[in-house]
């Protein structure tokens, strides 16, 4: 398909919010019948560009051509009429409506203003059959799976006769099986003559489905490349603007005295079951202890108990030789604990408050940030400015609300706040969830740095790659127990996977031994 026409041409698109340039002279062209990936870090301006194309935002300057004709896309309605449909990252679905109601909304089947639900359901069913997007037209959105919600969202654009579909980070909320299914759907749609723009920061997805890829960095379009002839490493380097390493660069650990000692810890969860069942664990100064496991096997409760957010039922926790069992979180924090919480937006930051205030959350009441009960704003600002610089938090100013930052920069701000207090133990729970390669690399580097400075680090993550790359020892949790502790450089994905599924350590080891050579080889290759 060398000489196919461009269905979309975006030429020199610039979009300014105040003094901030979200898009700066961006060029993008999409050919008919291709899957065109739009790759960029969080906050690089991908979504802005696509919101312009779908009529939600108007560009400050630049031209858009659809099928060769210059157009003004002043509203989503106009975009619809031009055949452009967007599958939003956060689904644009009304929970209480049925699938059919959601799909027809704004373009209802009606007779004299009265909705014809039967006709609409029939139409949706036909579309669903034609494109192989399985949905139940009569089901309420709130009661169906995320995968089906996404299919409804795709059908919404097809119902409006879209020929150009924009998928905005479509896989973030899906299970691995659903992702495979979605990739299949996208390929089928292209076969039907549709064109697709795929917004993502996941390289393997681009490799799996995309034909070409346009890379955007800090609001500028860097290059458009053929995916087949470009490696993941090249794509990543283009996206971040420097050479990125997937492998964490670290020296061998130099573990010393234990900083955290947990003995026979039992934690009950809200309904009264034991979520953590008599766990004993040590974390040494100068090591990263990874906690692996499938979501919901007691990891969250374990961390909440250490940080004082949940009551300990029995057992003891000792930090730096001091018993911190059931102390107040502030007391524990002051004893020498830094905590990067699992849900950064809910527990890590107060989103509507200024970045400087968020950075000050752990220290605002201490000297010199407070004097006689009054906040010393100049000191708070000074601290914020210093940390923003030191940790490369990209923000318009220290006075911006935390909500205005991209996910990666929010996380950097939290890490800055926690590391700056120089805690003897740093707990990082899911620290890179939803972040792009550049930010992930940065955060891993900081965690290892803490370790090299002789501090203890706990890394809890559901991502096996992450746990294996960063940790020195890995504790695998299953059903509230620590089923095994293995050395990171002596294990592999297979063994950990079996342990996470509850297979006994001896058996897991056996299984892996059988095919060791082959396993470790393919493991190295995939890196």
């Amino acid at each position, binding site marked *: 398909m060398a000489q196919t026409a461009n269905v979309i041409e975006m030429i020199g698109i610039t979009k300014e919010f105040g003094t901030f340039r979200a898009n700066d002279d961006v060029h993008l062209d999409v050919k008919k019948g291709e899957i065109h990936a739009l790759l960029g870090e969080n906050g690089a301006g991908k979504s802005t560009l696509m*919101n312009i194309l779908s009529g939600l935002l108007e560009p400050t300057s630049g031209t858009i051509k659809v099928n060769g004709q210059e157009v003004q896309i002043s509203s989503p309605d106009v975009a619809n009429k031009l055949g452009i449909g967007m599958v939003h990252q956060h689904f644009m679905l009304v929970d209480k*409506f049925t699938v059919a109601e959601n799909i027809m909304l*704004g*373009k209802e089947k*009606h007779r004299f203003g009265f909705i014809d639900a039967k006709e609409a359901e029939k139409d949706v069913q036909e579309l669903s059959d034609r494109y192989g997007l399985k949905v139940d037209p009569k089901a309420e959105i709130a009661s169906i799976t995320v995968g089906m919600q996404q299919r409804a969202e795709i059908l919404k654009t097809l119902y409006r006769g879209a020929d150009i579909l924009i998928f905005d980070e479509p896989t973030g909320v899906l299970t691995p099986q659903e992702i495979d299914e979605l990739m299949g759907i996208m390929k089928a749609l292209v076969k039907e003559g549709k064109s697709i723009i795929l917004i993502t920061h996941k390289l393997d997805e681009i490799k799996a489905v995309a034909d070409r890829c346009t890379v955007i960095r800090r609001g500028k379009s860097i290059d458009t490349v053929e995916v087949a002839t470009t490696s993941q490493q090249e794509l990543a380097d283009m996206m971040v603007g420097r050479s990125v390493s997937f492998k964490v660069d670290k020296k061998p650990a130099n573990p010393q005295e234990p900083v955290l000692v947990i003995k026979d810890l039992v934690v009950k969860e809200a309904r009264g079951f034991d979520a953590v069942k008599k766990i004993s664990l040590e974390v040494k100064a100068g090591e990263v202890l990874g906690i692996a496991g499938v979501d919901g096997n007691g990891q969250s409760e374990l961390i909440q108990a250490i940080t004082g957010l949940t009551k300990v039922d029995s057992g003891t926790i000792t930090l730096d030789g001091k018993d911190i069992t059931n102390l107040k979180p502030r007391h524990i924090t002051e004893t020498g604990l830094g905590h990067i919480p699992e849900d950064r937006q809910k527990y890590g930051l107060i989103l509507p408050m200024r970045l400087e205030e968020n950075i000050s959350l752990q220290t605002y009441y201490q000297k010199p940030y407070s004097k006689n009960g009054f906040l010393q704003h100049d000191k708070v600002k000074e601290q914020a400015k210093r940390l923003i610089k030191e940790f490369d938090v990209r923000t318009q100013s220290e006075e911006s609300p935390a909500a205005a930052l991209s996910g990666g920069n929010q996380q950097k701000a939290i890490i800055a706040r926690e590391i700056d207090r120089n805690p003897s133990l740093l707990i990082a729970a899911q620290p890179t969830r939803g972040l792009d390669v550049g930010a992930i690399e940065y955060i891993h580097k900081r965690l290892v740095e803490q370790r090299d400075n002789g501090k203890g680090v706990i890394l809890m993550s559901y991502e096996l790659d992450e746990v294996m790359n960063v940790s020195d020892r890995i504790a695998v949790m299953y059903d509230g127990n620590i089923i095994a502790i293995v050395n990171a450089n002596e294990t592999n994905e297979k063994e950990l996977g079996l342990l996470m599924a509850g297979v006994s350590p001896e058996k897991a080891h056996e299984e892996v031994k059988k095919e060791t050579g082959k396993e470790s080889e393919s493991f190295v290759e995939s890196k």
Partner: protein
Amino acid sequence: MNLESLLQLIVSSSLTYAAPLIFTALGGTFSERSGVVNIGLEGIMVMGAFMSAVFNLTFFETFGQMTPWLGLLAGGLIGVLFSLIHAVATINLRADHIISGTVINLAAPALAVFLTRAIYGAAQTGPLGRSFGRSNIFLLHRIPVIGPIFFGNTSGPAYLGILVAILCWIVLYKTRFGLRLRSVGEHPHAAETLGINVYLMKYSGVMISGLLGGIGGAIQAQAIHNEFGILTVAGQGFIAMAAMIFGKWNPLGAMGAAIFFGFAHSLARVGNYIPIIQDIPSVWLKVLPYLLTIVILVGVVGRSEAPKDLGNTYVKSK
């Protein structure tokens, strides 16, 4: 008093008190379904009551028996005008919905009483020219046994209210307009991406609430108090909101809840004739509807399913 006439009295009295609540609760339903909290309904009722009283006293000689019915229109119109203040404040100027509603609730009685004094020289208008009174519902009252109890010598506006509630239900759940209005109260961004004019829908919701709230006030003045004064409305707007919540933002539910509150109101009036509650001091019966309002708001609100985007200001992306 025999059982049949006692039942007849309870039903007609309940419906009489329920009528203004039915209309106002339906109004609230439309506003909140579009995502705008309208606690200004109290003030809107006051203005509706005032306007209908003025209309009634001015034109009763011209229109005769039709006067109170036309008075509903007068009340409804002023309600629409007043609701526009709320719409502009909350939709365009992004004011907090509660604050804007409170302003209306403070301004309306002050303005109405001021104008009453200016026109009639007293804090009350004095008795109206024609009030609704009681009437038989055409043909239905001839049905044996239940006919006289439910449809004889009863409140005309209440039956109009029941019809309007059914109509509102059809509009909300069976028409294109209703689907769009509800979508805006649930997920305005989704609606906008589908080309629906969010502001227009919100304006429609608030203005319909003004119309129905104004009519509710007009019924309160012309069917219950037979005059307008500062005590004419006295919290009925809030009770109507409780009915709306109790009715789960559904027109038929709101109507049912309004009739229930009407029944609670009527106990103070007819309690003397009912053997079991005869001995309860009437002050308690008078307090009952307000007490129920509090209990229901505290007990039901948490579990009730409000429109998802209720009370948020929608900011169009540019």
